[in-house]
């Protein structure tokens, strides 16, 4: 049978869902950026978990620490939103629930990110 796709459609490579391989690619991209950021994060928690108020605030006020933890949050939150979207699509088949959870799946990382970045900036700028 003849291919019904137009040449433009073929060259765009976006498929019927109009998303192409973007989800897959961003999952991998953030997976790669997560690795060094998470190694730093684990080290930070291992050293500063249980440390005093002053010690933790002094550490978080250092530029490199604040920047790396900020990036760790951004990378991880984007990555986990993609992952949870797949879990929802795999297990939730009722349309209303699925859409509601997909919406919540966008809100949750934004709320966590807002709390984390606000806190990091307040401490970094000495608030």
């Amino acid at each position, binding site marked *: 049978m003849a291919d019904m796709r137009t040449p433009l459609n073929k060259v765009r490579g976006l498929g019927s869902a109009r998303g192409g391989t973007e989800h897959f690619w961003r999952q991998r991209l953030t*997976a790669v950026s997560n690795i060094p950021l998470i190694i730093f994060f*684990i080290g930070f928690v291992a050293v500063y978990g249980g440390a005093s108020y002053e010690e933790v605030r002094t550490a978080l006020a250092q530029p490199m620490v604040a920047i790396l933890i900020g990036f760790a949050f951004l990378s991880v939150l984007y990555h986990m939103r993609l992952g949870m979207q797949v879990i929802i699509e795999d297990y939730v088949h009722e349309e209303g629930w699925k859409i509601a959870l997909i919406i919540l799946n966008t809100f949750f990382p934004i709320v966590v990110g807002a709390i984390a970045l606000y806190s990091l900036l307040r401490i970094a700028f000495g608030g």
Partner: protein
Amino acid sequence: MSKSTATRARPISPHLQIYRFTPTMTMSILHRITGGALYFGTLLFALWLLAAVGSREQFDFVNGLFGSILGRLVIFGYSWALIHHMLGGIRHLIWDTGHGLEKQTSRTIAITTLIGSIALTIVIWGAAWAIRGGL
């Protein structure tokens, strides 16, 4: 004469509980479970940062929660889930290149990631404990 396709017993797809658990299958399931748990756990660290913005009393209160037996168990479990998910992710990145997909190799890597994640978690907290003299 054969029955119509609508009434003939159709082959049924075997469901999850039918299968014998293999290392790769177990790691695949664990990868998804740890990913789901890590998702919600990010809120804990964000709240810890928020506590550091507040007063000393607020920070000590949150630190006290994390320092309790339950808090320590959650953090220990969380760090294992994080390391396990990371090693599993590296395994997936290797697979993305087309390497390590042979039956025996993928099985070996799967077992290695599980043992590696448990070992690394113990080593990291052991080192932290040794340096700080207790959590």
